């Protein structure tokens, strides 16, 4: 076998091994670095966008469900109503296997003057005991609604464009049913 032929074989074998090596050494660190990319803590959430959007969330033991309102209407409309009659969130008590369906309405109205500050008045009933509902506006306000439907404060300043988070804190005693459906209509009054 001539030296040239031997060289060709060595080169071919080298290239043959180089491709998987290159893939491994490029893909593995990329996956590690991507995995290290931080995310916002959302155990489970549904995102509500313009007008009528339904996005179900996955099941399993979750601590928070968040409904996010971040609509362009907040920036433009003087007053509008968010009707959440179709909210159906089922809670199953893990020990008692008791099923509770939560039907709520959320009323959002702008009573402001020039700066278009929006006030948020939540109305809740049928909240199972041990379930706490937390409303967060941006990073500032945090409203807790207890199982009797009491809430604090009664009005939340929701600056146009600001995000409103509606979270259900369940402390591990409840499981949220798998087929959560949130159907929210936003209409200008």
């Amino acid at each position, binding site marked *: 076998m001539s030296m040239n032929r031997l*060289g060709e074989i*060595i*080169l071919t074998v*080298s290239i043959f*091994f*180089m491709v998987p*090596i*290159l893939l491994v*050494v*490029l893909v*593995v*660190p*990329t*996956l*590690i*670095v*991507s*995995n*290290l*990319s*931080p*995310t*916002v*803590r*959302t*155990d489970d959430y549904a995102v509500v966008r313009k007008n009528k959007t339904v996005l179900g969330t*996955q099941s399993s033991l979750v601590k928070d469900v968040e409904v996010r309102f971040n609509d362009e209407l907040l920036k433009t409309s003087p007053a509008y109503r968010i009707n959440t009659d179709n909210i159906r969130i089922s809670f199953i008590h893990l020990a008692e296997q008791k099923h509770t369906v939560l039907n709520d309405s959320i009323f959002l109205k702008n009573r402001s003057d020039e700066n278009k500050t929006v006030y948020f008045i939540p109305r809740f009933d049928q909240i199972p005991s041990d379930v706490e509902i937390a409303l967060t506006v941006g*990073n500032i306000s945090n409203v807790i609604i207890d199982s009797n439907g009491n809430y604090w404060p009664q009005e939340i300043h929701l600056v146009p464009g600001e995000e409103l988070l509606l979270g259900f804190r369940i402390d591990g005693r409840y499981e949220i049913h798998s087929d959560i459906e949130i159907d929210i209509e936003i209409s200008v009054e």
Partner: protein
Amino acid sequence: MKNLPLKMLRSFIYPAGFMVLGKIVGMIFITNLNNYPFSLQNNLSETFSIQFTYASVEQVQMVATISNLFMIIFVLAGCLFWLIKALFFHDSHESPRVIVKLSELNMISFISDTYSIYVPLFAWVLYVWLCVGLIGVDTYLDKSNLWLLIFSLIIGIVITGLSFYDVQREFQIKNKLYVHEYE
């Protein structure tokens, strides 16, 4: 040539390690500096099941931006080492003054040949662009700030340009030698 796969593997492991290390160091640094509370979240519906989670979008943006900055600086540091070797301590075009100086310092072994320089340099430059890509993805996902993407793009272009400049110079030298031998 027969050791090329092994050499490539060795050359690629260092920038990969630096990249991951830079990301981790950056995350630890900014999280401790600002006392951000963080947690590990296991989400099986995502591509990456274990995620580092922070309380707000602002915190995520800060952590992602600073950790990406550390990542590209770490990779850039290694890349600069090989680029300087290629430009100034390359056996094909080193200046006599540099050789004398290195001889005095007993560091003549610092001068390397083309094969020893270009394989790691190629690896480091590739990882600089990999960092640029990852920063681009984070910027697209609104996690990382735009200025970091622009900064890393400029770094990538400059580093690649300087590497090409050295390769081009190497080709010119080889051509001259070939013509000289032929004559």
